[in-house]
């Protein structure tokens, strides 16, 4: 299968043979054009590689965009060289339309650092605004005027994206009763908040703060190393798009897939990572469910040395 064919067809990947056929074809292409991945030799590449070297099948100087992780403390920053933003646009928009509908929406984003050009999350929301957003769509932080205006009367359903801690700060200040057809989508970052809370506690507080039922509080799972996202439509179980597969594996033996309910590292095959590497081993701790996966937290190497997986569920 040619890479151009894969580029035009990846969003049509379906369960079963076609996904695996495409996944192997993409992998063959990536091994042929990414010397580092070829030298690696195994399937799932640890995302740590993005912190060390350019993970590309092309000359990084030709990248249309570079996504970077925010990085914390002294840890190195991940860099994802994006050859073709059109691929990212198709992945982002196709899946969003599948889960949220065709729009239009008034898309509001409360994302600290939204001026940062290297944020894949900011880029994702910008693309969604371009594709589905009304003229009222906007980023905001301290000045909540865009949110107030939308609440006063939006021409379309409101979709509010926000980092978990930022949204909590918003609802701590006051109640923002959104129209019943609104969606709030938290994009993670719970650990940054004053005190770690469970996802269900977070969603409960957001539901109360925005005057919505908890089923209208969604979560988004993504990272700069991935061109696709998964959404949890209320609750904590994420569902990836058809061109992305997430499995839970033994972090020390990634070829050992764990049964549902047993915590382990999240391993991803993202066909939209066409020009980098699709088979990735994340540093996230998760647990598999029949119809998706749950994210329990981060899985740094140091934790593995002293880890105690007692937790039955988050």
């Amino acid at each position, binding site marked *: 299968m040619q890479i151009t064919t894969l580029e035009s067809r990846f969003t049509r990947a379906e369960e079963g043979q076609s996904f695996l056929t495409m996944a192997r074809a993409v992998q063959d292409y990536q091994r042929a054009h990414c010397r580092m991945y070829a030298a690696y030799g*195994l399937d799932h590449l640890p995302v*740590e590689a993005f912190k060390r070297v350019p993970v590309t099948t092309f000359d990084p100087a030709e990248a249309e965009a570079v996504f970077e992780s925010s990085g914390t403390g002294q840890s190195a920053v991940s860099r994802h060289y994006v050859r073709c933003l059109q691929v990212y646009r198709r992945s982002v928009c196709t899946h969003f339309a599948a889960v949220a509908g065709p729009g239009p929406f008034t898309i509001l984003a409360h994302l600290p650092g939204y001026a940062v050009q290297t944020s894949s999350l900011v880029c994702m929301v910008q693309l969604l605004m371009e594709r589905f957003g009304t003229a009222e769509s906007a980023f905001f932080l301290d000045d909540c005027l865009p949110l107030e205006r939308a609440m006063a009367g939006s021409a379309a359903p409101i979709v509010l994206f926000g980092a978990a801690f930022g949204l909590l700060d918003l609802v701590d200040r006051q109640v923002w009763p959104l129209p019943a057809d609104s969606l709030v989508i938290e994009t993670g970052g719970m650990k940054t908040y004053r005190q770690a809370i*469970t996802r269900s506690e977070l969603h409960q507080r957001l539901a109360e703060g925005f005057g919505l039922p908890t089923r209208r509080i969604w979560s988004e799972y993504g990272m700069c190393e991935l061109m696709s996202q998964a959404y949890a439509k209320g609750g904590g179980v994420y569902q990836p798009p058809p061109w992305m597969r997430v499995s839970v594996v033994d972090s020390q*033996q*990634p070829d050992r897939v764990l049964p549902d309910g047993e915590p382990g590292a999240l391993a991803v095959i993202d066909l939209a990572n066409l020009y980098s590497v699709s088979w990735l081993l994340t540093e996230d701790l998760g647990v598999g469910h029949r119809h998706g996966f749950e994210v329990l937290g981060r899985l740094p*190497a140091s*934790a593995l*040395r002293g880890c105690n997986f*007692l937790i039955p569920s988050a």
Partner: protein
Amino acid sequence: MNALIEAIAGAAADWRNPGHPRRRQSVERTLKADNRFTEQSIAFAINQQMEQLTINNLHNWVRDRCTPEALKVGVLNAGNIPMVGLQDYLAVLLTGHAYRGVVSSKSPALMPAFAASVERRVPWVDSEFVSVDQLWSAAEALLATGSDVTADWCRRKARRHGMPGDRCLVRGHRYSIAVLDGRENSDDCDRLAEDVMLHGGAGCRSVALIFAPRTLEPDRYLESLALCSTVFPPHPATSGALAMSQALLKAIDTPHAYGEGLEFLVSRGGPDVQGPGHVRWAVYDELEEAVAFIDQREDELQCVAARPHLHRRLPDCCMVVELGETQRPPLDWHPDGVDTVAFLAGLSGNLPRPEG
């Protein structure tokens, strides 16, 4: 308390014999559990701890620090190395509390078997191993050790069950480091190897990072690692687990060395902690760079191992020990810098119990 101390010391005396039936049976069960323990690492962990459980050592450790009001203390035992929860078990009982322990599925047999040996001598001791659910319904205080995720979960569960925050001692995940100056002799190298290799790199006291002068050749340290892997052979799964790390190092052209059968992996690079069995060799130009790392990462470190001559140049903020001591914690050591006995004795005040 004297009777309890005598019972613990008596049980430990029995357990110093590898052929003691209860010890032998629990070791056999442990080896069958889903873990990376080996016969040698289990024997080391048991022997190292049993040697210390003498009447004098126990008295000197607890020093009559008892609670005036007994509570049921729930203990969530980590399962990353054999018998890792023994100190908590002893501390709970010797401070006069009741023990409600949950064992990890990775190490389900050793602690209950040793507790049974103690109870045979003092049947009145209030000690029980329970399920996680039973623990939450029974416990009035908590000792727990685990990853950040586990720690968060413990705190939340405790809060939900109405347990005051000051009755919870929840320890996070930590690691240990070694600081070399190049003057280590062959014994020092061998001792360092034990710090690195003994439990396959698992556990907060295993050395995960080695700081070394830039000009120091690692060869003789690597030889000691190879030698140690013959004395304490790693679990058969270790090489499989390290294969991915080695493949990545190779792919990104990071200098590294490994045992012939991939029993260990040492990579050169920045001071970033890698997975179990994979040690990072981080170089410094001035010792102050290692000192700065220790100062900045104090909350992440359990021990810093170095030759005694280096100790005075290292920060006193965390536990500085000699090479070869990280896997040999004394009975009175303070995990995460917290005195467990003082915590338990202070749960309801800290009144000395009269002698006798």
